[in-house]
């Protein structure tokens, strides 16, 4: 599937919707992609089925403080270094790339990197939406484990984490990020294409593109109807509160917060609990939606999704609930992204109707 200049706005809208308020700002990554396309480079998405079974697919993406990513631009060398390191450590050549997370900037970055490195980009990812932690990636959820993991930061450091549980990898990666430039390129061990359907979520990049197209051409109600989602509320943000998150093992976790929207029609109060993503919604004190479904807050005027870290009091918004990928609603994996995985002691509240 070719990605042309005209597709980029739809792709950007789609991946930022799937970010569920997180996943990082797509502006920088989109600008990079646009400049490549404008320079005449061709970009395409390769369906999983078109790869030969033994093709090695390397999951790649940017982790860390994505706000810093916009200030401290990638040189391109980080991706090359990360890929070289993982190839050297595993002894396998990379035949293709796959995004670690379709939601947010990592829905765009692999297309840029694939072009630079001359590798096809597979139409799949390891999240199906925006997820905050490495141990929540689909490969970890599928029981495959993350290691070996390579982290390459813009200052030139490259870290190979050879062994460790997913949780240890997550913790070490955060420590590395804190001690380096704030963001880093993550590359995981190459995955044979034949195993991808079990440990990755196929078709998500293409789905993001078509979601973006629908979002650009329809209003929120129509979008919800077309995607099997629903509008949770339409109104003004009356309060945004942010606070330090519950610490674990003596370290503070991600910052927590809540945003409350008073619905114009019903006057009901829709409270969104957020961390890096919008995680949980309560209408008048009653839970109405939760992760792993995607909760997106759109600027009512422009339809642009508003990230958790920039939402503020007074804006007019539409709150959307979009169905989670089937991968996550499987009872074996549900707990990985369920509210309790984020310290919210509540059962998942998901859309009944699935696509």
């Amino acid at each position: 599937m070719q990605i042309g200049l005209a597709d980029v706005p739809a792709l950007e809208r789609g991946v930022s919707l799937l970010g569920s308020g997180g996943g990082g700002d797509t502006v920088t990554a989109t600008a990079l992609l646009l400049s490549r396309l404008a320079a005449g480079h061709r970009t395409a998405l390769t369906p999983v089925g078109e790869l030969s079974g033994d093709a090695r697919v390397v999951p790649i993406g940017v982790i860390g403080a994505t706000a810093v990513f916009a200030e401290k631009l990638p040189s391109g060398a980080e991706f090359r270094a990360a890929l070289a390191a993982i190839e050297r450590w595993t002894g396998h050549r990379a035949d293709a790339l796959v995004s670690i997370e379709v939601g947010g900037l990592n829905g765009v970055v692999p297309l840029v990197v694939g072009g630079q490195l001359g590798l096809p980009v597979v139409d799949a990812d390891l999240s199906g939406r925006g997820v905050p932690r490495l141990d929540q990636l689909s490969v970890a959820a599928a029981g495959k484990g993350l290691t070996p993991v390579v982290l390459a930061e813009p200052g030139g450091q490259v870290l190979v984490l050879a062994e460790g549980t997913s949780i240890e990898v997550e913790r070490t990666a955060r420590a590395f990020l804190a001690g380096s430039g704030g963001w880093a390129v993550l590359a995981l061990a190459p995955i044979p294409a034949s195993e991808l359907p079990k440990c990755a979520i196929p078709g998500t990049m293409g789905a993001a593109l078509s979601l973006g197209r629908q979002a650009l051409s329809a209003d929120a109600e129509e979008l919800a109807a077309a995607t099997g989602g629903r509008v949770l509320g339409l109104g003004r943000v009356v309060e945004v509160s942010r606070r330090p998150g519950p610490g674990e093992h003596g370290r503070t976790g991600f910052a927590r917060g809540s945003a409350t929207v008073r619905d114009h029609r019903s006057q009901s109060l829709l409270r969104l609990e957020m961390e890096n993503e919008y995680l949980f919604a309560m209408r008048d004190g009653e839970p109405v939606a939760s992760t792993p479904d995607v909760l997106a807050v759109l600027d009512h005027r422009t339809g642009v999704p508003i990230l958790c870290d920039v939402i503020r009091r007074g804006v007019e918004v539409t709150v959307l609930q979009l169905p989670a990928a089937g991968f996550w609603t499987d009872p074996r994996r549900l707990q990985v992204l369920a509210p309790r995985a984020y310290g919210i002691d509540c059962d998942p509240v998901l859309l009944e109707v699935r696509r």
Partner: protein
Amino acid sequence: MTISVHRLLAVPDWRESVQVLAGDVDRLVRLARPMAHDRSIEPGELVVVVQPIPATDWRVDALLRRIADAGGAGLLLPEGGLLETTRLLAERLNVPLLTSTAPPLDLLISARMLLAAPVLDRADLVLAVHDALGSRVRPPEEVVTTLRDLLDAPVALLDDSGALITGELPHATEVRVHEPVPQRTRLGEGILLAHPVLLLDTTRPALWLATELADRSAARADVVPPALSVAAAAVQRWLLTNRIELERDARSRAALLADLLRLDDEPTADLRRRAADAGWSLGGWHIGIRIGTQSAVDTVARSREVERVLRAEGVGAVVVEHGDGWTGWATSEQEPTADRVRSLAAQLRAATRELRRTLDVHVGVGRPHPQAEGLATTIAEATDAARMARTRPESGRFLHVDQLGMAQLLLEWTRTDTFEPAARTLIAPLRGQPGDLVRTLAAYLDAESSIAETAAVLGVHRNTVAARIERIERLLAVDLGHRDERLALHLACRAVTLAEGGDPS
């Protein structure tokens, strides 16, 4: 048992520490329980968050929703950090949302006490008032300040006209002093409570004890009246104790007065001493004053009022409770001039008018007489004048002996209700007899027992007169030669002829 959230807010430890952020405070509370994660909420339940959970936690909102769905009575949280969202939600769901600066567990306990036994709050207050005022007699000022501290509200003692005696009360004028029952008056958000202080033998309250409960405390109005009643009893005790002293004093004064009035000789040294102790001067010139009233009037209690009225009119006089009324006298060093006597009479007349506003009195004033024995004389004159004044509304129930000749005084005396029937009985046997015996007797006595002059006055023969006199003496079984009987019959004839409108001459 249910109580309103409003009532809970009046509980002392709630009043200071709890703030209402949203919801209807008239909501009825049936039970108060600490929050537990996995139990259902009951209708009328006030949920108290006793474990520390962050005020920003989404579970606070979820709890509000559960309370609303279950028909709960409200949510009490520790103060601080609550999101505006939570307050807006409580408002939207109309669930009372309370925050507290005190430990919620303490408030939970006091709420449960009130729910379990609403009368305990009342009993506690009554006991506290009793403990503070119980053991000894305290002046009203102390009762008022003690009660004010215990109620944490303004308290005042008012007299029977509603005037402030001690303490302070913004709406003292709202007490209805003419309704001698405990009162409860709404004052906007607040409540005015008043309790009469009654003396045993009257229905008219001597004093009023009143307090005002503002705003939040007003919900506690059911607790306060018994405490007010205990305090009123303390004031009553003070009044009664005072009264005993007054009575004792009044009795000794009355006894001294009686001794002085019985005096027919120079007073003994002992009597002089007692008079001096009482502050009475026996020397100089005295003008007697008698203020008579009904036997139902409590003269001891009203003495002060009488003294006050006399003083207000400029009369400096000793006043003693005496029989059904008061006996008094004004003393001067020198013999009072006619002007002085007139102005005193005018002052006393004004005082009588003033007293008659609240008391049915009749007042008599004697002539000036010197020394101790003169005192008895002038008081006797005043007493006679007062007795006459009683039957003479046209005089304003006030008579001054100076205005009457002695003869008139005597005649007036015969007009009294007691004498006239007696007079009629005395001469009744003469009635219905041939010959104008009553007129003949009157003329005979007027003519100083001269049969000739009587015959001339009546225009009959002197033998006729003699025969009639003889018959009269027989019919009445009297001897007209005896001075006492002659006097009695003379007065009786006058009384009867006066009463019948006949001309005595």
